[in-house]
């Protein structure tokens, strides 16, 4: 299992979701994608995207103006 980092700061939705989607495509099932964003919309979009596409959101944390997510990739791309 490896951890991939995605820096989506300053990007507005849906760009952070697209960056996460691209990272998931390149990762193996069970890998962790760790994403940092500044658009507060990601707090609703990233969890929704994970639910829809079968990936597991391990954590979603706000720290000041930044939002941190950890996503475990599911079996399907």
């Amino acid at each position, binding site marked *: 299992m490896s951890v991939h980092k995605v820096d989506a700061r300053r990007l*507005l939705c*849906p760009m952070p*979701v697209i960056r996460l*989607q691209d990272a998931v495509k390149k990762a193996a099932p069970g890998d962790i994608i760790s994403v940092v964003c500044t658009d*507060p919309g990601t707090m609703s*979009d990233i969890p*929704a*995207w994970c639910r*829809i596409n079968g990936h597991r959101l391990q954590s979603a944390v706000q720290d000041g*103006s930044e939002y941190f997510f950890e996503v475990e990739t599911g079996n399907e791309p």
Partner: protein
Amino acid sequence: MQRKAVSLISGGLDSMLATRVVMDQGIHVEGINFFTGFCVEGHTHAIRKQDQNKQKRNNALWVAEQLGIKLHIIDIVEDYKDIVINPKHGYGQNLNPCLDCKVFMVSRAKQWMEENGFDFIITGEVVGQRPMSQRRATMPIVSKNSGADDRLVRPLCAHNLPETLPEREGWLKREALYGFSGRSRKPQIALAEKMGLDDFAQPAGGCCFLTDASYSRKLSDLWENRGEKTYELDDIMLLKVGRHIRPRPWFKLIIGREEGENNFLNGYRKQFPHLFATSHTGPLALVDGELRDDEDRRLAAAITARFGHGKKADSVDVTLENTDGTGMQLKVAPISEENLPREWYV
């Protein structure tokens, strides 16, 4: 063998219904949503502080979740430029190239369909719904020019159009599709009710900022004054933010209207020269273009001063910072109302 369809999900009601109609016939459907940079979703809400408590859901994701389908969001920002800059079929009421846009999106969906082993494409188009892109005459143009031909199904108005491949092959029952037409939304609302769907988004004008008159005016102004029809993603994002004031053809100021916008503009300090008052609190102003001489610099500073708390002061200290970090201090009187003509507002 279970057939598979890819559906263009805009986040609005029509594509949601069209998808459900096809799913109800036992077809496996996945959604595709295109990001052009002009989409209405999210952005302005995310930027403006006063809007941050409003609902921020992404409607395309929401629709996919309601339907229980996967959604693939595709970044088409680069390729889409040519559609906006040189639309073969021209623009609608504003700078919306709807017909070319539809053709392009369906052709990208076709590409996706082929790459992923899917069988056909669904859109929520309805004959006669939109003056430009959804007329009876333009429906075949979209099918043909996109290359999708009879693999493009519009379940909501299928009865008004020739039979498609999925119908001929028996993958879809034609009688279970619909024959909606015209601008009325009643049939869609009734169908949504029947399907138990509610809380859906109903965009009034269209799905993107190019249908917005004031946005289109800002984009035209950008093209005119740059002397060429081009844009970058940052340009079109910035058109959604702040006051745009053009005192001279060679420069315009983008001035934050509130904290959220100022924060957003702050992120561009390394890309644009910018001004801000230091003796009083006030907004950040980005300079798009060049300040050619002292007169330009003083004018830009006087306008910046006017939109801060020093508005009524005799003199305001303003810092002008270049992208390389160099800069200068200016002491100016805020520009008066009479000297700031309406025509400067883009």
